[in-house]
Structures are given as C-alpha cells and as structure tokens.
C-alpha cells in the first residue's frame, strides 16, 4: 500500500514518463497534460489499494485507457459530424507513371531516420516546419536543415545511374 506521504515522491519520479507515454498515444500536448493530471489524481484516489511494485506500469495502463477514451470520443464526434472519415484513409496508391516517393526514399541509403521523418511529415502528411518541430521535438531550424539535406540526397539518388532505371526515371529532375 502506498502511503499518501509518498505520493509527491512518486509524482516527481514518474510524471515525465507518464507524460511521454500519453503524448505518444494522443500526439497533442494539451491533451497529454490533461490526461497526465487525471492519472495522478486516480493514483491519489486509489493510493490505499496500490503497492509500490505496481508502479510505473499501473500509471501507464491508466494513461493508455484515458488515451483510448479520448480517441473513442474523437471517433464518435467524427462519425456524427463527418461521414467521410473512413474514405479519408484510402488504400495506398497504385503504381503511378511518375516516381513513387516511398520508392525513392527506400533507394536512398544515406538518408537517416530523422531525414525520412522530416520528408514524410512534410510531403505526405503536409505539415509545416513548425508542425514537424512540434511533433518531433526538433527545432524549426533543425527541421529546415534536415529537409534541405534530405532533398539534396534524393536529387543525387535520382541523378545517379542505375541499370534498371527507366528512361522516365532517368530524365526526371535532370
């Protein structure tokens, strides 16, 4: 049983991790903040029935349940206000006469995960640099740098000859 006297120590020890877990699940800081406070309030209310060795797993479980509640409410709202939710998530595009972006990314080995993340968030998710920075924890300047470097590598990949490249691919961005 956790004494209420230990609560502040538990809060200081685990609030960062609970916030991170929650942020991964909901992707919005203000929502993560609300859910994190609910988690610790629930811990406070349940202090007499929780043992120390159940932490932090118990906290993470509560956080994920609250996140699931958030998404359930979001989905209900979407379903009632917009019937096109399902149609917005379409099947992956079929082959296209131009060069598929995912194919180009896969063919560019020097690209690191951070470059790919910035490129995908920019050109697939349609995020601005500010939004990318918010989602990744990078600064806007870092995002700009990663995008520019990533695009440079992609152009170099396109320009480098490959035996199985089609004429269309070879002439792209010449």
């Amino acid at each position, binding site marked *: 049983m956790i004494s209420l006297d230990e609560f502040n120590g538990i809060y200081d020890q685990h609030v960062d991790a609970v916030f991170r877990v929650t942020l991964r699940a*909901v992707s919005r800081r203000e929502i993560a903040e609300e859910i994190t406070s609910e988690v610790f309030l629930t811990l406070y209310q349940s202090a007499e029935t929780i043992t120390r060795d159940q932490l932090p797993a118990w906290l993470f479980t509560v956080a994920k349940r609250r996140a699931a509640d958030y998404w359930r409410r979001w989905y209900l709202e979407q379903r009632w206000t917009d019937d096109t939710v399902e149609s917005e*998530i379409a099947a*992956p595009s079929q082959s296209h006469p131009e060069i598929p972006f*995912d194919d180009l990314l896969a063919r560019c080995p020097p690209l690191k995960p951070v470059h790919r993340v910035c490129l995908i968030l920019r050109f697939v*998710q349609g995020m601005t640099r500010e939004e990318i920075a918010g989602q990744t924890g990078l600064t806007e300047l870092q995002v700009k740098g990663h995008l520019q470097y990533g695009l440079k590598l992609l152009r170099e990949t396109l320009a480098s000859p490959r035996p199985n490249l089609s004429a269309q691919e070879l002439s792209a961005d010449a």
Partner: protein
Amino acid sequence: MPDLYSNESDTLPAGVYSSQACPPLALLRAWKEDVLTADLARDVASHAENCTLCSMLVSDLEHLPQPGITAAERARIRQKLPLIAPTARAGGWRWYTVAGAAAALVIAGVLLTINQTEHPRQAHIDVPTVSEPAQTQTASPLPPSPSAEPKVAKLEPPVDLSPALVLRGEANASEPTAQQLAPAFDAYSRNDYPLAAQRFSQLAKQFPRSGTPFLYLGVTQLLTNNNADALFNLTRAEQFVSPAQKEAASWYRAIAAQRTDAPNASELLHTICGRNGSRYAQQACQLEQMPYSN
C-alpha cells in the same frame, strides 16, 4: 537572405509523386500504441500495414528522442492536483489514527494515575488549550511540526497579478493595488514565509476589508504550522474575498479548523465535500473521514 520560416523552398524533385492518402500522424501513433477503437484501428491498419511510407514513418520515429515534458507543463499538471497528504508512515491513514489514539490513551492514563496519587480528590487530565489569536498576528517561524497534520498545497498567487497591473497601480481605498501586493507575493513565491507573513499582515491591517491579504496570510501561516492564527485570518478572508477566491478560502479555513480541532471543522469539511464541481470536494470528503479529537 533566405527566409528561414518559409516552407515554399521545400519541393520534391520533379517527377516524384507522393501519396496524400495516408492517415494523420496522430492516428498512426495512436494505432501503434493500441488506443484506437476497433473500427478506427481496422481502418488505419488496412492502410498502414500496406503502405511503405507509413511503415517507414512509424519505424523511423522510434529512432528520434521522445519529446519530454516542459517545466511549465509539469507545474500546470501539479497545479491541477491540490492534494493534501497526511504525514503517515507506510501503513497509511489508518495506522496513524490508531497509533495516535493509542498514544493519547496511554498519556491520559499516566496523567490520571499521577494526579490520583498526588491529589486523590482532584484528579483531572491536563488538556492543552488553544489560546484565541490576536488580530492579524504575524506568524513567528515555527519549525515544521513532526505531528501527523495534513500537509497543505501552496495556493498559487492570483493570475491577475500581472506585470501590467503592477505598473498601472490603480488606487482603490478598500483594496491593495497589484503594486502594493507584489512585494508580499514575491516573498511568498520565494517560500520566504516569515517575510511573506509580515508583509501580508501589514496589508491586512492597512486594508481590513480586503480578502486577498487575509487569505494569503492565512495560507502562509498554515504552511508554517501557525494554525490558530491561520484560522482567524482565513475566517476573515472568507468574508471578504472575491467570488473567484471563495472556494480556496473556504478550503484553507476548513484545514485550519481541523488542525486546531475547532468545533465546526467537521461542518466546514462537510459543506465543501458536498459542493458539486468543487476542486476541493474530494479531498474534503477524505479529510472528513479522518477522526480528530474534539
């Protein structure tokens, strides 16, 4: 000079096609964390499991350091938890109350025995009394009591004590200006409670019908375990505070009442406990269940 904040310079090489049909990042993440409803998870999965870009994105995000909590967010979350925790040992509240009651009985028994021995016809139990506080007594800095008194969450200064108001310094005969309050709140924010109490006390004397100095004087006194004076000043605060501060004033007054074993402590806690929507209701209900000597 290139515009650092323009997104227009980011363009894919000519001829490169990118799909716009992927689910938003938030949904992808939530899907990975397994917190989506079954229907929505199915929709996301039907795309993400067959999309190279989505798989790449979700996988690559794992390589980036996770954004953490900021100090401001941590403080805001804590602010939403105005918790009071008794200084109980690992056994929890019940251990402390049983032990306290047992100790009191032993002491009472010893005193009774001594008195009966010395004055057989006048046996009585000495009970410490709480003296009535003088008006706006300034707290002397008492060391933190090792007793099992409920700990108090510090009340945040009012949000309207902004720098703009400090500079403006509008005069009002019955209320101190933000400029007049600022030194007291400065000491309060720095946890310099003796100085804060001194300054709030001066303001309370200067503005005897203003609730804010009495409220924060009372809270400061609770924080330094000067409970009797705190009760007096918080009772006065509750009469004069603005509606926005009423809830807090009632709560801290109830704590002071319980600490000093005031006869109306239970009633005060019960009132807050029954208040729907009060941020202190739950704690009041729990404190109400803690037995105290009366």
